[in-house]
């Protein structure tokens, strides 16, 4: 006997159920199909090609009027079901019609989530779900602008589709990188680069605050940081919620989605549900592959046959031309998990495989996704990959031969990239020298001059020898930055500049990093190298800094912190001392100590109290002494001509001037100075990174001293006549060290490598260059000479560092 089946929603999932029913037993059910949209089943996935103009709506229709007629489906499109009476087994349509059913199928899909920002109800704020939304976007063209909130699959398809129509599109994404659910940081970086190449503006880590309107229509999006982005249309693509309202009201069990069992039955034995509206075993669904599996099982259940829905792995591809990416499975790090990473910087390719217990559990690929389905198969089948492990990443076509190439990053450099900064020699010039017979490093030095000065480019020159001569050249051993890379510090620094690398993920991709996101050794080094190379243009990554530099205080063994305010040249005032004393009282500071750097240390302060004590000290005019920084520390001085009978110059005044110029600067390691008023050297200038000894005829500038792990006496760099020159040489020396030394090398280590003579050539003999280096230093200071304490105490920067997320010790006390 034919039974009555009522279906709510003519979507992609319920459409499949109808197909299976009709194939198996056309007479089993008399079907009535309701759909809120004024049309039948179409391929929602292909809305993006419709948007970009590659397809028409007609081409993506799955079931047209003829099909429904041939299959005897009664269509009620443009009509919603208003309520369900599961006891009486009837549904009520919007117009009041009541229909009885034997079986009811929910296929109501999901609703796009709209963030309730102020202005979300303005005209011109839309989601991306159906044909109507698509048509709204298709109404834009040249000269229009649009904002897309959400850098996931849908948002990026919307953005690319509109950009293809000439619309000026900005994507706002709250996370640090695009498609963070499917991609890791490295692949997210490559995707972003491809979108930017298409003319799309991408803002990550951006928080939307308000949608601004005019005459009831959207005008612009306002971000947290005050930026306003004008737009004619604002598309929110921030996620979907299963459409469960009707099901909930009809009394069947609903959690995040409509609860279904393995047979797709809801808590009511006559009601089934399929598609994005369901929740099965805790999981929700947003891609069609599992929905089609559900449809198969639901049809069988309706026909009284045995079947069971099993969740499977899903894979994602983005349908944006030119953005070739693939992700499948689970690629989170884990105890027993290992990564295999392949990067080809020249082609912009990144592949990462995650392996657990000899099976592949996850894969992310960008740029070359041809092998995606093969890897996906290995994941789904849990194939044992131990035998092919070594060559796995090269894919199924691998025949033995190539291996990962440590020279890839250098090979990818353009011919005009500068290899040797000292002598202005390009890659092409080095290669030319090798080609005419310079087959050793020394020969290249002699004929092209590359690597003949500071020597920091020797590693890259060796790479070029290796690339050009192949097996005929024996590569020298390199001291690599850490286990994440095959490159030395020098190579990395040179390439950051040659390739204009301005973010950590970018550097890791372009320089062929072997891990997906580095470690505690390479991240701080990369961060410093970019801070130094691109003042003002690089966004400092505090999360890649050691805790002291991240929270601007020194951590103590018990987890408290110490606070050292700056005291320029060791000079203080009664007011400053009073403020320090008051702060010590107010915050119960257990120890107040005079440091070896001529200033005062307040030790044992609770992390939560830091912003408050900084605020108090700041009111009295004090700023951070950066006693925690790989950067400028102190300038010690003696009393000099002001008071001392032996004094030859104003050593105190000069020290203060230098500290005023240099505070706030970051460097490879800490940088300490001292200025003594005569050779008796009461300020201990001869064991500092840079020391000045005043003499009758001027100022002796001494460099390369240390009194820590190694004890080193300074050497004379130059003697100058005026204070002004002394300051200039000091700044030029600091800049040269900042640009040249490897991370965590004090100046004496760097000098041992490049030679004092080379330094003299650079900034003693070459006055032009001295000026240039000093100017570069002052330029950089424009961006870094900002008191970090004031930023945190008064402007609330990084507030999350200083307060607990939650405090349950107080809860119980109440």
């Amino acid at each position, binding site marked *: 006997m034919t039974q009555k089946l009522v279906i709510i929603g003519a979507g992609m999932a319920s459409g499949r159920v109808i197909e299976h029913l009709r194939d198996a037993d056309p007479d089993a059910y008399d079907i009535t199909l309701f759909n809120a949209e004024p049309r039948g089943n179409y391929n929602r996935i292909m809305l993006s090609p419709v948007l970009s103009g590659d397809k028409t709506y007609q081409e993506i229709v799955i079931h047209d009027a003829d099909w429904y007629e041939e299959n005897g489906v009664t269509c009620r499109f443009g009509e919603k079901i208003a309520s369900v009476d599961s006891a009486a087994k009837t549904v009520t349509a919007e117009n009041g019609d009541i229909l009885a059913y034997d079986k009811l199928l929910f296929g109501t899909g999901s609703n796009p989530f709209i963030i309730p920002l102020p202005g979300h109800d303005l005209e011109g704020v839309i989601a991306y779900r159906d044909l109507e939304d698509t048509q709204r976007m298709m109404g834009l063209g040249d000269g229009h602008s649009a904002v897309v909130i959400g850098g996931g699959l849908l948002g990026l398809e919307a953005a690319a589709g509109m950009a293809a129509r000439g619309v000026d599109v900005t994507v706002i994404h709250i*996370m640090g990188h695009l498609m963070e659910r499917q991609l890791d940081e490295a692949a997210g970086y490559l995707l972003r680069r491809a979108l930017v190449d298409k003319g799309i503006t991408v803002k990550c880590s951006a928080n939307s605050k308000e949608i601004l309107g005019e005459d009831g229509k959207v005008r612009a999006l306002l971000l947290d940081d005050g930026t306003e982005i004008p737009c004619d249309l604002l598309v929110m693509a921030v996620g979907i919620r299963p459409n469960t309202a009707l099901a909930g009201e009809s009394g069947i069990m609903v959690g995040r989605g409509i609860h279904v069992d393995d047979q797709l039955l809801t808590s009511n034995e006559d009601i089934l549900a399929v598609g994005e509206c369901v929740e099965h075993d805790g999981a929700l669904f947003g891609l069609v592959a599992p929905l089609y599996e559900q449809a198969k099982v639901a049809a069988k259940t309706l026909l009284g046959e045995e079947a069971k829905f099993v969740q499977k792995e899903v894979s994602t591809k983005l349908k944006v031309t030119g953005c070739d990416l693939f992700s499948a499975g689970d690629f989170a790090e884990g105890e027993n998990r290992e990564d295999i990473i392949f990067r080809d910087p020249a082609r912009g390719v990144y592949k990462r495989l995650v392996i657990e217990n000899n099976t592949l559990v996850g894969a992310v690929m960008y740029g070359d996704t041809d092998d995606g389905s093969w890897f996906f198969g290995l994941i789904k089948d849990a194939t044992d990959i131990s035998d092919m492990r070594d060559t796995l990443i090269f894919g199924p076509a691998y025949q033995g031969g190539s291996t990962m190439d440590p020279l890839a990053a250098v090979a990818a450099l353009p011919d005009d990239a500068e290899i040797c900064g000292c002598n202005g020699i390009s890659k092409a010039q080095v290669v030319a020298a090798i080609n005419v017979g310079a087959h050793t490093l020394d020969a290249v030095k002699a004929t092209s001059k590359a690597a003949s000065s500071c020597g920091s480019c020797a590693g890259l020159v060796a790479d070029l020898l290796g690339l050009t001569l192949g097996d005929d050249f024996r590569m020298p051993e390199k001291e690599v930055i850490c286990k994440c890379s095959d490159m030395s510090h020098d190579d990395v620094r040179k390439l950051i500049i040659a390739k204009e690398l301005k973010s950590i993920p970018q550097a890791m991709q372009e320089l062929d990093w072997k891990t997906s996101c580095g470690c505690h050794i390479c991240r701080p080094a990369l961060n410093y190298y970019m801070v130094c190379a691109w003042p003002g243009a690089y966004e400092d990554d505090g999360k890649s800094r050691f805790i002291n530099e991240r929270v601007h205080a020194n951590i103590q063994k018990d987890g408290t912190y110490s606070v050292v305010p700056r005291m320029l040249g060791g000079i203080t005032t009664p007011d400053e001392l009073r403020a320090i004393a008051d702060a010590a009282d107010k915050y119960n500071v257990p120890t107040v100590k005079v440091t070896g750097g001529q200033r005062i240390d307040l030790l044992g302060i609770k992390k939560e109290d830091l912003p408050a004590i900084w605020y108090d000290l700041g009111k009295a005019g004090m700023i951070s002494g950066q006693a925690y920084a790989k950067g400028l520390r102190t300038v010690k001085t003696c009393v000099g001509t002001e008071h001392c009978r032996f004094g030859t110059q104003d050593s105190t005044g000069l020290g203060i001037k230098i500290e005023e110029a240099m505070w706030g600067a970051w460097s490879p390691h800490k940088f300490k100075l001292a200025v003594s008023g005569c050779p008796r050297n009461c300020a201990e200038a001869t064991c500092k990174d840079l020391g000045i000894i005043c003499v009758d005829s001027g100022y002796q500038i001494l460099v390369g001293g240390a009194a820590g792990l190694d004890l080193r006496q300074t050497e004379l760099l130059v003697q100058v006549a005026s204070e002004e020159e002394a300051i200039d040489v000091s700044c030029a020396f600091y800049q040269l060290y900042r640009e040249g030394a490897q991370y965590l090398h004090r100046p004496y280590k760097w000098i041992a490598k490049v030679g004092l003579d080379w330094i003299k050539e650079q900034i003693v003999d070459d006055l032009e260059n001295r000026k240039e280096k000093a100017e570069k230093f002052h330029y950089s200071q424009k961006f870094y000479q900002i008191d970090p304490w004031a930023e945190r105490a008064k402007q609330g920067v990084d507030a999350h560092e200083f307060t607990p997320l939650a405090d349950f010790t107080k809860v119980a006390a109440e």
Partner: protein
Amino acid sequence: MSNFIDIGSLTDIPLRGARVVRTHRGDIAVFRTATSEVFALDEYLPGKAGPLSNGIQHDNKVTDPMRNWVFDLTTGEAQGADEGTVATYPIKLEDGRILIAASAVTAVAAE
């Protein structure tokens, strides 16, 4: 009875950042990784490591600021040659909120 407790919004912790939750049994560090996964571990491994919320994160690992031990956030185990395990606590993410297993934060006073 719900056995998970809301401790805040996902956005209260920046990407690659960490925050502390204070409890009567000691501090718990709650990490949010670059891919927005959230993990909760004891802030200290007594006598050995901590405060872990102050460390540098890389992948699903954190490097202890005091002695450079590296801990796996998923298991709490020290990596490499170092030995020791920090207690981990179940976390759930729901609608942008972070929930922690109630047993992690409730006092053990009743024992």
